[in-house]
Structure formats: structure tokens, C-alpha cells
């Protein structure tokens, strides 16, 4: 799937186009469609303007091809649908997932792979380009997988109820911790009281 860079406006024109229209739709409609598609590529962090322009045009041309047959759909709807299709098909190819009956969350996996393979940083020129792709890129895409933790080793901590029996404890007074120490201090306190009593 090569993406030729068409430089003349003539390549956009359709035979039946009236003035002020492209593929049977007003120019403003395609402008809006362009904006939406460009926004999505922006969201994917395709920063290179040349690449961005190529990708948007590629998607819009596919939408324009559909436009005459689907007059009730807006240009933006068609363009965004094509965008979704182009991106998902490309993910299927790169990730080697059959396009038919693909994982319904293929798009999610593909986007995650783009991020982990650092498409925005290293591989912008490979995005939506037909294969073959550099091995490093393909490996990075295919091996990308997110984990919130290592493999589980499930176990179950179980609380042991507290025995809060102060009365029970008090009945075993002699076994209270530091009881001897407390007794010494109590004797000391009694001594102080005695001194106080004797001197007053």
C-alpha cells in the first residue's frame, strides 16, 4: 500500500464536480473532515508535517471515493470511518492478526504497541506505511504488552481475631508484663505519700 504524494489539485477532482465542490460535497465539509482526521493523527503524536499531510490525504481520498455512493453521510463521517479502517487494517498487518474476525480490541492493542514501540519518537515514517517494515520496529510492535504486575502468586492472608479480654487478663495479674516494675513504682509512690503525710 504505497501512498503517492499527489501535488496537483487536479488529482482531487471528480468528473461530476461542480464548482465549489469536491466528490459532490462542499469544500467546507472536506475541510471539516480534514480537521477531524488531522486531529486524530495529532492525538497519535504524528508530528512531522509532511507525513501528517500524506496520511490525511490518503484517508480523505478513500473517503472521497466512497462519497458519491453514500450521499446521506457527511464527509467527516466517511473520513473518520476510513481512518478507523485504515488504521485497524494496518494494525492487523503489522501485528499479524487476521483482519477478518480480528480481536475487537485490536485497535487498543495496536495503539498500545505504537506507544511502547515509540512510534512517535522513532518510527513516524513507518506508521500506516505498507510492509515490509524494519525488523526492529516489527519486533517492538509485536512484543509490546503491558503488565500491571508480574505473574500472580495468589495467597490469602487471614486475620486472627483479637482476644480483648481485659478482665481475663486482670485475673491473671501476676502474669501481666512488667508487674514487678510497676509494683516497685507503686511502692515508691506510697513512700512519697507517706513522706507527705508525715511532714504536713
Amino acid at each position, binding site marked *: 500500500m504505497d501512498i503517492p504524494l499527489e501535488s496537483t489539485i487536479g488529482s482531487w477532482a471528480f468528473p461530476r464536480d461542480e464548482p465549489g465542490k469536491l466528490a459532490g460535497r462542499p469544500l467546507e465539509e472536506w475541510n471539516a473532515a480534514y480537521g477531524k482526521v488531522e486531529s486524530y493523527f495529532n*492525538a497519535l503524536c504524528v508530528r512531522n508535517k509532511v507525513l501528517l499531510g500524506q496520511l490525511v490525504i490518503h484517508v480523505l481520498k478513500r473517503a472521497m471515493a466512497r462519497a458519491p455512493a453514500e450521499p446521506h453521510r457527511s464527509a*467527516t463521517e466517511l473520513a473518520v470511518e476510513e481512518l478507523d479502517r485504515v488504521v485497524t487494517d494496518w494494525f492487523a498487518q503489522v501485528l499479524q492478526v487476521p483482519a477478518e474476525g480480528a480481536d475487537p480490541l485490536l485497535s*487498543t492493542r495496536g495503539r498500545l504497541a505504537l506507544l511502547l514501540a515509540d512510534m512517535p519518537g522513532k518510527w513516524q515514517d513507518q506508521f500506516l506505511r505498507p510492509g515490509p517494515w524494519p525488523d526492529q520496529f516489527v519486533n517492538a510492535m509485536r512484543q509490546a504488552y503491558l*503488565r500491571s504486575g508480574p505473574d500472580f*502468586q495468589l495467597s490469602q492472608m487471614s486475620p486472627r481475631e483479637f482476644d480483648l479480654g*481485659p478482665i481475663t487478663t486482670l485475673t491473671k495479674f501476676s502474669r501481666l508484663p512488667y508487674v514487678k516494675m510497676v509494683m*516497685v513504682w507503686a511502692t515508691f509512690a506510697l513512700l*512519697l505519700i507517706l513522706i507527705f503525710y508525715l511532714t*504536713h
Partner: protein
Amino acid sequence: MQPVLTESAPRKPTPAHVGIVPVRPPKRGLRVFFFFSSAVVLTGAVSLLFADLLWRTGWSASRTVLLVLFVILFLLAAIGCMQGLYGFVLRILGDRHRITLMTDYHERSIAGTSTALLFPICNEDVVRVFGGLRATYLSLAQTGELHRFDFFILSDSTEPNKWIEEERRWIELVRELGALGRVYYRRRLTNEDRKSGNIRDFLNVWGKRYRYFVVFDADSVMRGETLVTLVKLMEANPAVGLIQTVPGVVNASSLFGRIQQFANRFYTPLFITGLNFWAQGFANYWGHNAIIRTEPFMQHCDLPRLPGRKPFGGQILSHDFVEAALLLRANWQVWFAYDLEGSYEEAPQDMIANAQRDRRWCQGNLQHALVMFVRGLRGISRLHLLFGVMGYLASPLWLAFLLTFNWIRLSHKFSGLSDITVRAFTPYLNLTATQHAFVVFMICMVVLLLPKCLALVELVFDTARRRAFGGLRCATASVLLETAFSALHAPLQMLWHTSFVVTSLLGGSVRWGGQRRLAGGVTWRTALRRHWWHMLIGLVWGGLIWWFDRPVFWWFTPVLAGMVLSVPLSVAVSNTRLGAHARALCLFLTPEEISTPPELAELQMRMVVKQKEPGREESLPDAGLAEAVLDPYVNAVHVSLLREKRLNPVYAAGLEKLGVGKPEIRAIAERLLMRGPGALSPQEKILVLNDADVMAWLHRQAWLRPTETLASWWQVALQRYTR
């Protein structure tokens, strides 16, 4: 598809680990006896003197109450004083009985160990949390032992914006550090049992993979070398279940924050050395910056609910003390590694934030009054728990002491009797009643201020420490000003703590949200709202004393001044410019301010860079939700994490219980598209965010549907991606 994982920490405990039999810690009864006897003897002597003073003007029931309150309060002060005194002596003479000197651990290998570093968070400042984690990670990487540690961000966040920001920052961090498979992020479905439940959840899923785990607070940073040392210490001391470091307070910028930071760094070494003298292997756990042996913790430290109603019943809020007590009960040792540097935390930056933190801790500590009676606990554990309780109960007792004193003076005035003092100890001491009162007062002052003086004296003998605090002159001025500020702050603490205790006892609940740690400055309006009752009490109380007992009024001025001046004081000390000005004047300098350790410098630099980034959160309400739906990468990360969650049977059951996967959620999502997040309740937003399929569907729909058919909120959100 095989996961991409860097080599992770070894997964199975070694046989040496499995074979550990806890050894009963050596008896430290004599140390405990001598230490507390010193405090008791001092309290006894001064109480006798005070009782004698009371006797001289005629005994009464209210005087008995006053004496009892005095004894309790003085005993607490005396214990603090003794800790400072013992600490001072040990630091001068050298303390050999500490965990770092008990075994030769330096050459110990940590090969074969696996340690998890846990960052339990709940609606915290995400940039700060990840900044701290990053600084710790980089510091650990420099030790060459990084591969023996795994990092876990254990989120309990309930605010969608925080949740999504955490995921975004996490993926940014792992990509930046190349730490996929080394730094993990997991969010619980519900924050049942708060922090202790969060840790338990981790242990139930991954605990068996790790021989040790280190708990961090949201504002913790630890030096890599310190972490490696902790693991070595655990390896060298197989009977030790937990080692608590003493985190130094750092990164304060407001005047209040810097005063607290100085007090922490300047006085804590003395107190903690004294504490270690009597605690030894029966120390305590403060909830973070501590390494824990996983197996005994899992076996003994799952906390049950306490019977009865609030404030004592229900979930144990301050779990750390109790967990240490349970480890000790099972004959595992718990130590303070108080001489290990490179362990840091941050503290509240103003008086109000400080009080809010105390409010959260108060109820938890009061619960310990019940836990103290749990059978089988060690006596020292009961002491730790008791001190935790008294940390808050002392305030109402002090207030009661002051009021009882006023009552005695007032009732005397209205009795019409004249002041006739009788002879008591005066034949032996030869003191007038006024001199007698002054002696008691001065002893109290000495007991309160002695540790501060000793910390200064220590500086004279320790050149390196002296330099670290900016020299003796700067440190002395700082101590004097800190003492003056404490005198003004203490009455406010007394009123706040009293209200917290009363509220807790009446069953008022505590909201356990994120803590406000950043210095933002307290406005006059906020200060007035929070302190008006302090001012009112100060004015009314002062007016009454002025009216019925003018000489006593002057004795009460330090207490009253703090209350009356609370509003300007609160505003002033929260000011970061005053904090910087004090620093320029060499006041409240700490070692980390004079020579910033690399891990803190890294964190500070990171925070500056991140604060300059344009904020995403403030621009749009529910920005996190918008980002999770619209941003292709954030959405992919979010959905992937949700999908992985289903692999855990406990979480899968939890998701099912929440209703995830039901058609109703699709209907809620449809409402979100058509009417925006304002049409959803907070629970509905969380529900949508928890459903992987719905989130993937929303991403597609939000981009596919014509913008004009979406709620205006989406149109604003989509504009972020328009060039």
C-alpha cells in the same frame, strides 16, 4: 503474545529463607526498668514538691484533681526529657546496641533476594509521587542492584482525574526509564480497609514472590544505598521482622515547614537514640520507610476488625503500631535503624494542614486504647500503643489542668478568704510560696527544654554536625526561635487535639483522603475560618483571668498569645517567602539544605521541570475522563490495564460485582456521549471507567461520531487535539 519484560527480581524464596525460625529477642527488661524508673523518680520528686505547694494554701478536692493531672502530664514530659538525656549521653559515649552494629552486614550478598518497593497512594499529588519513585529508582540503579527490586504503585485513588493521571504518568515514567517489567501500576477496585487493605491486596497477589517489601509514603524518597543496606541487614539478622528507618523531613519551603523540618532534623537523633536505648529489638513501625520480612508479616499481621462501634470499634485506622505489636507477639524483632541516612519524607507546610493530618491520626491512635488490651501482646508494645494514645490525650489533660488551676483561683477569690500560706517543706527548703511556685515552674521548663539544650551542646562536640546545621550561631538562633514558635503553637495544638479527641469519642468519622503537602500559603480568609474559635477562646479566657486574677494573667500570656494571634500566625508561617527569607538569614538550616543529596536534587529538579509543563487537569472539568476516552494512547493503556485486571480472579469477581459488562453501562456511556459527564453521577463515571469494552467503544464513538452530535463538553475536549 509473550510479554516484554526486563529481567525481574528472583521469584522464589531461597531455602535459607524458608528455614528461618524466629529467635526470641534478648531480654531488655533492665534497660526498660532503668529508663522508666528515671522518669518515675523525677516525676515523683517534682510531684511531691508540687503537692507541697498546693498544701500550703489549703487542700481541696480540686487540688487533688490538679495534682493527678500534674503527675500524668509531668510523667509524659519526663519520659521525653529522659529520652533526650539518654540519647545525648549515648551519642557522646557511643551506642553499640543498634541494629547496624550488631552484625557485620557490609559484605553480605543480597543475591537471591527479592524486594518489592510499595507506593500505596490515594488521590495524592501524582507528579510528586512519581518524582519520588523516579529519584529512588535512579539512586537504586547506581548501586548496581536494581534488578533485585521491583516497584509497585498501589493506587487506591477514587478521583477519576487522579486515576487517569496516575496511569499516564506511569507509562511516561516506564518509557522514560525503560522500566517496563520493573515499575508496575495497579489500582484496586475499591479501597477497602484503606492503606492496610491496599498492602494486604498486594501481598495476596504477589507477596509470595518477594522475601522483603519496603513501604513508602506518597512523599517518601529513599537512597538506593540505604535500601540495599536494609536488605543486607535483614539478611544478616534472620530473626528481625521489620526495620524502621527514621525519615528526615525535607523539601519544606514555607516558614512553618522549615521550622518543623529543622526540629525534626535537629532534635530527633537525640530522642530516637534514647528511644532505641529502651526499645532495642522491641521497636515500632511508623507505616513507611521501613523494610518488612514478607512471610511473617503475611502470617501474623492481617488485622481483624475491632468489635463495637466507633471510635474504638471497626477497622484499625493506625495499623502500623499494631502490625509491629503483632510481629513482636510472634517473637519477631523490630528495630529502629536510626543511624541510616538517606530516608526522607515531607511534612505539612502550614499549621492547618498539620492539624488536618493530626485529625486523621487521632482516631486511629485512640483506637489503640482498646488494642492495648489484646492478649498476648508484649508489654513494650502496650507502652508504644499507650504513648500513641497519650500523644493526643495529653492535650485535653493539659487543658483540664489549666482550667482546674483557674477554677481553684476563682473559687478562692469568691470564697472571701485571704491568702494564708502554711509551712510545709519550707523548713527544709526555706522558700516562700512564690519562690516555691517558681521552683516548680522552672523545673518544668528545664524538663521541657533540656533535650533542646542538649542537642545544641552536642553540636559543640560534633564539627561535622555543626557545619551541617550552618554553624553554632545559626543553630542557636534557630533553636531559640523554634522554641518561641512552639510556645505559640502548642496552645493551638492543645485546642485542636482536644476537639479531635472529643469529636472522635462522640463517634465523628475521619475522611482518609490525600494529604496536602505542598506549600500554597494560607489566606487570611482560610485562617479566619479555621482559627476564629481559637481567637475567641483566647480573648474570653484572657479577659476572665484579667478580671479575676490579674497576677496570674501574665503567667498565662504564652498560652493566650498563641490563641489570640492564631490568625496572623497561621498566615505568616505558611508563607514561602518568609521561609526563603529565614533561609537567607541562616535560620532553620538542615543538612539537606546545605548539601543536597543527589536523590533529593534529582527530585527537586524533576518537580521544577514538571511544574513548568502546561497543566491538563485544570482546563476542563473531568479532564481525566476526556483523556481516557479521547487520547489514543491513554485509552489504550487504560483499557489494557483493565483487561489484565480480569486475569486476577479476585478482581474479576469484583468487576462482576460492580456490574461491569452489563448493558446498563453501555447506556450510561451513551448518555456520557450525548450529555457529557455532568449527566453522570460520580459512581457512574467510575463504573464506565472500569469497563474495558465500554472504554474502547467510547474511544471509537467519540472520534467516529460527528462532533456536533456530541455534548458540547466533548467538542471542547476534542479541541485539545486540533493544531
